[in-house]
């Protein structure tokens, strides 16, 4: 059985170490916060907050406290607020240890595409280009294939890039792959998924 969304998030949470400052993208990456356990992790929200707390209780929403997905959230006793230029200063300056992001496509040399589909979806890159260019480690969490069953782990991305050669590790419903010289290296397969199944679902070059 491939991993479900929560199992992928739980696997991604294993990448985080005590003391890390981390930025989580929208979608499955947001769920990673549920699996950090006792680790001392500080979540950054690029609209200007370090120390992001959970959603508020009903009736306690504050329009002045939102995350980068524009959702209402809460602060913690460690929270700090700052402006957008300062926020991206810490991102561009390499102070954020890791970003966990979703993706439409990833290539074997670590190219990432997650911001637009020409002619179909034009929303903008938001902070994704800054994050992948600046943070210490970029971890992509996504389904291994699209709805048509085609691999999203490719030799080359077909969509406009968010960053070139920026991805370090890919976590999908089928397993975990690292970007290494010459292609991707299988780190582990999801429980019940064989290495052959993982290879068959991957268009990118896999090096042993």
């Amino acid at each position, binding site marked *: 059985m491939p991993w479900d969304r929560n199992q992928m998030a739980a696997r991604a949470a294993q990448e985080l170490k005590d003391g890390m400052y981390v930025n989580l993208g929208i979608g499955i990456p947001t769920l990673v916060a549920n699996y950090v356990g006792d680790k001392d992790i500080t979540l950054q*929200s*690029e*609209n*200007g*907050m370090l120390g992001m707390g*959970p*959603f*508020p*209780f*009903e*009736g*306690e*929403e*504050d*329009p*002045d*406290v*939102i*995350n980068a*997905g*524009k*959702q*209402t*959230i809460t*602060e913690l006793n460690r929270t700090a*607020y*700052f*402006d*957008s*230029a300062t*926020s*991206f*200063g810490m*991102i*561009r300056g390499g102070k954020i240890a890791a970003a966990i992001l979703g993706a439409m496509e990833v290539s074997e040399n670590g*190219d990432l595409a997650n911001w637009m589909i020409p002619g179909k979806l*034009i*929303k*903008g*890159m*938001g*902070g*994704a*280009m*800054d994050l992948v*260019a*600046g943070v210490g480690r970029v971890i992509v969490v996504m389904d291994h294939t699209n709805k048509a069953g085609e691999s999203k782990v490719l030799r080359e991305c077909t969509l*406009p*890039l*968010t*960053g*070139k*050669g920026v991805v370090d590790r890919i976590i999908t419903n089928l397993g975990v792959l690292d970007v290494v010289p010459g292609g991707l290296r299988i780190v582990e397969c999801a429980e019940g998924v064989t290495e052959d199944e993982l290879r068959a679902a991957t268009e990118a070059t896999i090096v042993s």
Partner: protein
Amino acid sequence: MKKVYATAAEALDGLLQDGMFIAAGGFGLCGIPELLIAAIRDAGTKDLTVASNNCGVDDFGLGILLQTRQIRKMISSYVGENAEFMRQYLSGELELEFNPQGTLAERMRAGGCGIPGFYTKTGVGTVIAEGKEHKEFGGQTYILEHGIVADLSIVKAWKADDTGNLVFRKTARNFNPPAAMCGRVCVAEVEEIVPRGSLDPDLIHLPGIYVHRIVQGQHEKRIEQRTVRKREDA
């Protein structure tokens, strides 16, 4: 010099011109200068170029200036959640320049700080880098981005004193300080104007030197995505 004005319309009096370049603070609908945007709509100023991270939603924030066709060009990082924006862009009525969010914030900050350009790794190898100067520093490639200087900045703060010292609240700070800094003239709308001396000088977020006019008013502060947890989840 008097900085406090009674209404948003009065605070903008004499500053608006067709074809002008405006920088606006806010992120999504959080910390947006909603009163000044409404006053610009009422003034009918058109052919605007607006630098703002987002363009509001269809019926709130900068989205209302799209409905009235007052905006000619947007400089933004994210324009989802706005159907009218997409329609005008795809039909060619609206020009759009995508900037990565951090690049946009830094362009505003730099413009306000007298820095005409800066090099960044953000966007290297993507469409954002096309046509821009590339330069190597320490074996890494960077692209040149230009500082923004706007004709007018419109921002929203929590509190001000009558000299224009501003204090923002929580994540409503976002783009407001860099947007304020990059304007030749900056108008700030605030929830409360407090007596001079009542703000702690050590806790001013944006010194009044950047702020030329201030107006106090009632804010709707609309929430874009209301997300909550149930008490029993705690």
